[in-house]
């Protein structure tokens, strides 16, 4: 009805009929053996699946996700970490580091307000974080940016092509959390924030990496 085939992508609203047979996929549901959309988003069809990529959705934690969060409080035996999801997550003292550290030392290092890069190790009645992986770290300095979690795959790009390109061009260091929080360190952090905003606006239009490449080049020229 309101579809636009010629642009290469189709926008759907909730309740749009996608297939007259029950099909599996993300962002869809079945009712009376028909498949409908759940979100306002971009329709992606494959032979077996129908997916709807929402423009915006709230982050739903999954075990194994790497996230950027902020230490809110300490309450023995765990730190409470805020990671922009509906429920807070918990970082137990035993999971903070792979080597043994005294509680006093940990409390000195992870004061409330500290940003950390951690992994979700377990989801049971509460969300447990772990910092035992090698990439886990405390984030010092730098700048934070926030995007919708649905845009995170676009910021990283196919086999991390987008993020590698941005890092090389701007000579910055970037960490992206699955929850949509981005940490940028370097002199050109402002340009990266602008580029990320552009990505989240134009994620569904093809040729994204080239456009971001041109955008960063022109921004770098303007800066000098």
């Amino acid at each position, binding site marked *: 009805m309101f579809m636009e085939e010629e642009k290469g992508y189709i926008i759907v609203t909730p309740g749009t009929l996608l297939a007259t047979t029950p099909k599996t996929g993300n962002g869809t549901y079945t009712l009376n053996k028909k498949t409908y959309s759940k979100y306002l988003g971009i329709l992606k069809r494959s032979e077996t699946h129908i997916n709807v990529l929402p423009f*915006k959705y709230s982050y739903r934690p999954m075990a194994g996700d790497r996230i950027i969060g902020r230490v809110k409080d300490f309450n023995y035996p765990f730190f409470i970490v805020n990671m922009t999801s*509906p429920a807070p997550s918990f970082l137990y003292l035993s999971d903070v580091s792979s080597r043994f550290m005294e509680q006093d030392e940990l409390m000195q290092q992870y004061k409330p307000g500290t940003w950390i890069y951690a992994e979700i190790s377990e989801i049971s009645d509460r969300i447990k974080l772990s910092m035992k992986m090698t990439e886990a770290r405390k984030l010092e300095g730098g700048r934070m940016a926030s995007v919708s979690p649905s845009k995170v795959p676009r910021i990283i790009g196919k086999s991390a092509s987008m993020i590698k390109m941005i890092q090389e061009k701007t000579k910055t260091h970037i960490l992206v959390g699955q929850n949509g929080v981005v940490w940028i360190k370097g002199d050109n952090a402002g340009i990266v924030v602008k580029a990320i905003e552009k990505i989240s606006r134009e994620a569904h239009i093809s040729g994204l990496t080239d456009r971001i490449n041109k955008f960063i080049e022109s921004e770098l020229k303007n800066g000098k």
Partner: protein
Amino acid sequence: MENKLIKDGERLDGRKLDELRELKAELNVSKSTAGSAMFSIGDTIAVATVHGPMEVYPRFLENSEKAVIEVNYTMLPFSTDDRNRPGFSRRSVEISAVIKRVLERIIILEDLPKTKIIINIDILGADASTRCAAINAASMALVLAGIPMRDMVSSCSAGKVEDTLILDVAGKEDTEGDIDLPIAYFPLTDEILLLQMDGIMTKEELDKLLDMVKGGCKQIYDFQKETLLNIEKDLETK
């Protein structure tokens, strides 16, 4: 016969019997919320803002199988001709409750266990059928907030004035008419999620009125859909 409400099939404001007032909508009116929308039909203006999904407080309301929703409907002091006392009234609590029941049917609550969604609806201008405008605005704001939904819901009112059935009651027709019947309509399964009525009418009249009001709801549904699809086109050009 000067103060007749309907003359030769035309109403006071020049509309036909089965014509809606002018529809307007604006999306993402507030940046600090997950999603927000303004919906206006004639002089009735509703602004809905959605917060969440978030943690459930108080804790005992938490449901481990589905989300909890909270609806706050308020009419602002300047919305009516006489100043309206700010805060909750008996009327606003009732309307919040009926809107909540409508929205519970269209949100897929099972997808968001242990969370709470707050929907605040403010009426900036009241010229009859405020609850309809409120439902329409809330439905659009929920879509923009990225909350999983079965479908959008649209709502519209109808009534009887001087033994004539009319769509979208407004102004004098509301205060002097015989019947006011707001409904919320779920187009996907052809269900009515809200039906309130005051006045007396026959069964045949009700059937006719329901057909008419469903047509109005479908018009509003198409308008909502078109607006939502257009905002994404605006995004690209920015």
